[in-house]
């Protein structure tokens, strides 16, 4: 399927729809011929990947877009083999090392070594370096990041590394200081509305302003999701109706259900039920920090104003330990337990106040 999100992805830095000034800077950077390692960061669906690909195209020409997927094999110290999928063109290679879980260090080291040890074939026509694109750097283990930092310096002559992350809070300072950090913020609601409308115009559809606004508000400022929502709504019903319901991702609804369960009753038995619901979300591949964020949003929505402050405080505490720890589920559950306690106490007090 050719999704609109792929179809209307701007393929050059001149064509991006927002933050044109930043795009201009990036163009200038590439036109100089050489650039340092880059670190793109920003929320999901803000256009990090789009900018990186456009940058590569600016650098190497359309040859970059001829992609092939390859499976690379690695060997752990305990002689266990595992496989990682990479996407590569003649000029660059893209890898998500955190797919390897605890063995990400080996991937980072081996991959950069193999790629960087070979020089570019025709260096007169092309650049003298290759590009390694590492995504989700913030999910790498500390060991892998340390390894990355060493290899980054060693192979500066033959390759440039572009890192892509959601936040730089989880990236070690040693890497941050070795890269030029480029922040790609989420587009504003107006930007999203504008983009949705241009897409509709190109497709030959008419989009009412109200619907564009509804979509832009329910997409969490995630452009990819906004475009997908638009396309899904179009498939569901066209011509568009202003009162038309927008397709909301079902995991988001499921988190809403979980929040309702938490609010309905505060007992150990309920907590057990909530735990199994949270596991259900994890099984479906929803990252724990996303679950945490939406759950908090839903819970706070239904709370008294005096309680909100406390709840956000405990949430920030457990979110911190979630990032520090390894088993994300433990912290999520601790947060739910704490919330239940606070909420039930508050309810009791307010009931006593009534009678």
């Amino acid at each position, binding site marked *: *399927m050719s*999704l609109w999100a792929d179809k209307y992805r701007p393929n050059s830095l001149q064509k991006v729809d927002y933050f044109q000034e930043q795009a201009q800077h990036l163009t200038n950077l590439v036109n100089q011929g050489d650039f340092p390692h880059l670190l793109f960061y920003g929320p999901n669906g803000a256009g990090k990947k789009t900018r990186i690909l456009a940058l590569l195209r600016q650098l190497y020409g359309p040859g970059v877009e001829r992609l092939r997927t390859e499976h690379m094999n690695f060997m752990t110290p305990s002689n266990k083999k595992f496989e990682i999928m990479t996407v590569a063109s003649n000029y660059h290679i893209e890898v998500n090392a955190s797919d*390897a879980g605890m063995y990400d260090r080996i991937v980072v080291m081996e991959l950069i070594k193999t790629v960087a040890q070979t020089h570019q074939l025709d260096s007169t026509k092309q650049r003298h370096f290759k590009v390694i694109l590492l995504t989700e750097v913030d999910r790498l283990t500390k060991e892998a990041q340390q390894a990355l930092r060493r290899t980054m310096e060693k192979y500066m002559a033959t390759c440039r590394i572009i890192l892509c992350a959601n936040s730089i809070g989880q990236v070690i300072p040693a890497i941050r200081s070795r890269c030029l950090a480029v922040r790609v913020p989420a587009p504003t609601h107006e930007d999203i509305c504008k983009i949705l409308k241009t897409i509709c115009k190109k497709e030959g559809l008419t989009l009412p302003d109200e619907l564009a606004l509804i979509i832009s508000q329910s997409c969490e400022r995630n452009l990819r999701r906004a475009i997908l929502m638009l396309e899904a709504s179009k498939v569901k019903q066209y011509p568009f109706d202003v009162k038309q319901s927008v397709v909301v991702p*079902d*995991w988001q609804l499921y988190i809403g259900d979980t929040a309702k369960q938490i609010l309905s009753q505060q007992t150990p038995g309920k907590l057990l039920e909530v735990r199994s619901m949270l596991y259900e979300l994890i099984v479906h591949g929803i990252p724990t920090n996303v679950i945490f964020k939406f759950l908090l949003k839903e819970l706070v929505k239904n709370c008294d104003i005096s309680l909100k402050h406390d709840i956000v405080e405990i949430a920030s505490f457990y979110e911190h330990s979630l990032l520090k720890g390894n088993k994300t589920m*433990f912290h999520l559950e601790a947060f739910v*337990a*704490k919330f239940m306690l606070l909420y039930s106490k508050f309810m009791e007090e307010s009931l006593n106040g009534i009678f």
Partner: protein
Amino acid sequence: MQLRRLKTDTPREKKDAKYYEKRKRNNMAAKKSREAKRRRDNEIMSPEKKAWIKPSFEDIPPTIKSSKHTSRKRPLTQSENKNSDWCNIYTPQSVAKLAVHNGKIKEVKHWFENLNNNSLVKSKFLLVTGPTGCAKATAVKLIAKECGFICLEWVTPMTIEPIYDQCTNSYCYQNVQDKFQDFIWGATRYRSLKCGVSNGQFLLIKDIPNVFLDKPDEFHDIMMRFNTPSQFPIVFIINNEKIIRDLFSTEILERLKVQQIKFNPITRKSVLAVLEKIVKSEQQKNKLLRIPNSSELNVIYDETNGDLRASIISLSFSCMNIQNKISKKCSTGSIDESLDLFHSIGRVIYPKREILNSPLQFKFTHNPDNLVENFAMQPTTVLGFLQENYLSRFSSLTDICKGADAISAADVMLNSNFMFGVSIYDISLSSLSVAVRGLMLANEKPVKAFRSIVKPKHFQYTNDIQMYKDVKVWFDDVRESPKDILLDIIPFVNELGTDRQKNVAKELWRFKRK
């Protein structure tokens, strides 16, 4: 080149006392050097190294210990170190003195008696199992002696000596497995010269070579081949559950017609009787002996869990004439309580308290420190088990909060590897201690109902790699990362995807909402 002095005859008149003294010393030195040379030669050309045929019996004498032989040796060790080796001194010398339950003795005796009368249903393998120190080997040896059998015991050789091969003029090594096989064949084919009068011999295998633990098939193979031609009885004595399971599966037990006799830990009564007897007889030898009172004897039994050998050793320790009383703490460390994982997790999630003076002052029946140290598993796994199981044992939400806090803190600690001067092992132990103590302290009123302990779901749910791979297989035309596909594209697949993708998504990624 002249190294020696020229030989000169000394005139008789010059031969004085000093000269004779010199001659005598020279002769002595020459004799010593001749003897040394002879010894060296003998060493190289010793018969076992000269032989080019592998003499299978040459290996056996050091490994066979006939029971008579050991009994002769025993008084010698006794006189050498007087009161340290009580286990040896007080080994029972007759069946009547065994501390083992009478029923078990009868069973073993029955087996030996069956060997003699040619009944049809006889089995020539006996497998004796039971925990350490419950007098398995002693009982078998004594009963066999009474029934007139001679014991041949396999002892796994500690060192491997090379065998000289004259054909290739080199030394070759024989592996333990071959040795074991040779021993079994040799010992069972040919009768020992010593046993002219007795009814027969039997083979005692207490210590199975480690090679077979990895290759149970080889062991079975040897046993099968042995089974067919020979009538020779073999007794295995094993205390390790895992070895029993690996080497003697039920199928093997049936095929070889192995009779199994399971020994139990020795009862409190008999252990105490043995200990008291020892104390009494030691007292006659040594008046300075410290006499432990009955409560101390009981404590010894509690620590050793019916291990007779260990309890005799700790008795000899507590009987030493030391002025300051042995504090209880240092003696409890003598033996770790062997608990399995479920048992110790149960102790954490159903904490038992003993109230000391007031309700605020209490201690735990099971010391949290000991519990933490006795988990024989990785701390992360243990933590997973605790997290999975603690929730259903708590009765109030306040307590749960404290418990969940402890687990969350422990997980954070477990991951803080970058601490100077502290080993990862220490960190993991102390973080587990945080979790265990936190849970035990938080759970003020445990739920009394029984619930089985379940495996942590967390481990089976975090297999992201497999999930991402599946996603990529079905959405190979989408150029997003698998994580983004799961988050953003699959929710819209109903509207946008192909039929194939719709079906797969319905099966794999659809939420079951109520």
